[in-house]
C-alpha cells in the first residue's frame, strides 16, 4: 500500500485528491470503499459528488475532513486549511443556544470575547437568523437548524466547505430557499465546496462540476461541467437537461449491479 501524506496543496487547487483508496476491515472481510479517486477542486469551485448507495461519498468527505485516514493516496488542502463539514442532520449541540453553538468554533480558536460576540452576530445575520440567537435548537424548524449549522461551520473561517447531503431531510420549498442561500454565501465568500448528494437535480442546480461515483468500489466514472449561468432555478429546462443526462449515467451504473 502506498504511503499516506497530507501536504499543502498548490495555489491552483483548494482540495487535491490523488489516487485515494480506502479499505475497511482486513483480509477476507475487507471492503474496498474507494478505489483510486483523483479529484481537484479549484479555489471558489462548487463540485457536487453524485452516486448511488454504497459509492463511498460520505467516506470521501470524512477523509478530506481529516476524521478518517485514507488507506492509500494523498489528500492535500490549500494552505493546510481545516475544512468545515456539514451533515444531513444539523448536529447542533442541544445544551447550547443558537448563539452558543455558533460560538463554539470561535472559542476553540481562542478569539477574545468581544470579537466572538461580533462574529456570532454577523454570522447569524448572514444566514438570516439575527433574531434567533437566544433560542435553543429544538425551538427552530429543520431548515433554520441547518442554517445555524451553516453559520457554525462558517465560523471556522475555512475556505473549504464539505457538505454531506445537508438538505436531504428538508422539504422542497425550504430546500429551494437554502440552495439560494448557499449559492449566495458561496459566491460572497469565494468558498470551495465539495457537496455530496443523491439528488441529481440539486447537483445540477448548484454545481460548477458534477462528478459521478460508481458503487462498490467508489470510482469516478463520469464528470461534467455545468455551464448554466447563475442564479439558476431548480425547475429551469437547462437544469432539467443536465439532471436528465446525469440520471441516465446513474441508471446505467445502478443497472450494472443488477446483472
Amino acid at each position, binding site marked *: 500500500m502506498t504511503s499516506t501524506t497530507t501536504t499543502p496543496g498548490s495555489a491552483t487547487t483548494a482540495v487535491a485528491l490523488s489516487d485515494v483508496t480506502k479499505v475497511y476491515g482486513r483480509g477476507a472481510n475487507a471492503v474496498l470503499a474507494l478505489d483510486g479517486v483523483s479529484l481537484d477542486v479549484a479555489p471558489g469551485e462548487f463540485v457536487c459528488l453524485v452516486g448511488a448507495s454504497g459509492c463511498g461519498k460520505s467516506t470521501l468527505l470524512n477523509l478530506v475532513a481529516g*476524521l478518517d485516514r485514507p488507506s492509500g493516496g494523498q489528500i492535500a488542502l490549500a494552505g493546510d486549511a481545516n475544512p468545515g463539514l456539514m*451533515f444531513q442532520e444539523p448536529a447542533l449541540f442541544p445544551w447550547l443556544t443558537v448563539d452558543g453553538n455558533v460560538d463554539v468554533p470561535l472559542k476553540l480558536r481562542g478569539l477574545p470575547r468581544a470579537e466572538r460576540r461580533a462574529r456570532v452576530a454577523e454570522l447569524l445575520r448572514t444566514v438570516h437568523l439575527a433574531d434567533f440567537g437566544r433560542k435553543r435548537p429544538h*425551538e427552530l424548524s429543520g431548515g433554520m437548524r441547518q442554517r445555524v449549522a451553516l453559520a457554525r461551520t462558517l*465560523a471556522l473561517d475555512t475556505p473549504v466547505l464539505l457538505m454531506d447531503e445537508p438538505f436531504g431531510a428538508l422539504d422542497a420549498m425550504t430546500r429551494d*430557499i437554502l440552495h*439560494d442561500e448557499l449559492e*449566495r454565501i458561496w459566491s460572497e465568500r469565494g468558498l470551495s465546496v465539495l457537496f455530496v448528494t443523491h439528488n441529481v437535480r440539486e447537483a445540477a442546480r448548484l454545481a460548477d462540476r458534477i462528478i459521478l461515483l460508481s458503487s462498490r468500489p467508489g470510482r469516478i466514472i463520469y464528470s461534467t461541467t455545468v455551464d448554466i449561468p447563475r442564479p439558476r432555478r431548480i425547475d429551469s429546462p437547462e437544469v432539467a437537461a443536465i439532471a436528465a443526462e446525469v440520471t441516465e449515467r446513474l441508471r446505467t451504473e445502478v443497472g450494472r449491479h443488477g446483472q
Partner: protein
Amino acid sequence: MASDTLTGAARTDAQISGLDALEIAGREKEISRGTRIWAATWPKLAALAIVIAAWQLVVWSGWKPPYSLPGPLVVGRELLTQAQGPQLWEGLLTTLRRAAVGYVFSVAVGLLLGLAVARSTVLRAAIGSMITALQTMPSIAWFPLAILLFELSEKAIFFVVVLGAAPSIANGVISGVDYVPPLLLRAGRNLGARGLNLYRYVIAPAALPAIVAGLKQGWAFSWRSLMAGELIVVGISQTSLGAQLTYSRELSDAPWLLSTMIVILVLGLVVDAAFGAADKAIRRRWGVLDQAGQ
C-alpha cells in the same frame, strides 16, 4: 439582469422570514407561574390528605393499641415538641453532616471511576461488570464486614455509604459517555475540539443528563445506606436520626418514632425534589421535555 438578481435576493429574504415565522408559530405557549405551581401541588396535597385520613381510620378501627400505633394528631404534636427541643436538631445535623461527607466522597470516587472506565477498554473489561454487580449488593449486607473492619464507628457507616452510592454514580457517567451521539462527536472534532476540549465542549455536556440520573440514584443509595448504618451503629457519642429511631423503639415511644420517621421522609423528599428540579431544567434546555408531553 442585475436588477433581476436584486429583486431575486429581496424575494428570497421575504420568503425566508415568512417560512421561519410559519414554522415556529404556535410553538411557544405561556402558562402562568401560579397556575403551573398549583397544578403540580394540589395532587400532592390531596394524596397527603388521603394518607393521613387512612392512617386515622386505621387507628380508629382499633387494629393496634394506641401505644404502638398512635394517630396523626398525637404524632403531629410530638413532632412540634421535638422541633422545640435540641435533640432533634442535633440528630438532624449529625445525619446531614454524615450524608454530605459520604455523598461528596461518593461523587468524587464515582466520577473518577466512571470516567476511567469509560475511557479505557482494559478497565472496562476488568471492572465494568463489577461496578454493576456492586450496585446490586444490598448495602445492609456490607455492614457485618464494615463493623469487622472499622468497629462500631462512623467510619463503618462511611464505608457502606460510599460503597452504596459510588457504583451508581460511576454507572451514570459510563452510560452518559457511551451514549454521546457519534454525530455530535464528529461535529465537535470538525469544529476543532480535540482531546480535553472534546470532553469539555462535547462529551461532558452531552453526558450530563445521564450523569445527573446517576447522581440522583447515588443519593438514594447513600441515604438508605446511611439510615441502615445509623440504625445498626448506635452508641457512638453523637445522636442521629437513625439512633433516635432505635432509642424510641427501645423506649416503646411510638409518637417519637413516627415523628422521627416523618423527618427522615421529608428530608429524602426535599433532596429528591432538588435532583428532580435539576433534571427537569436540563431536559428543558435540551428540548426533550416537550416531547414527553410535560
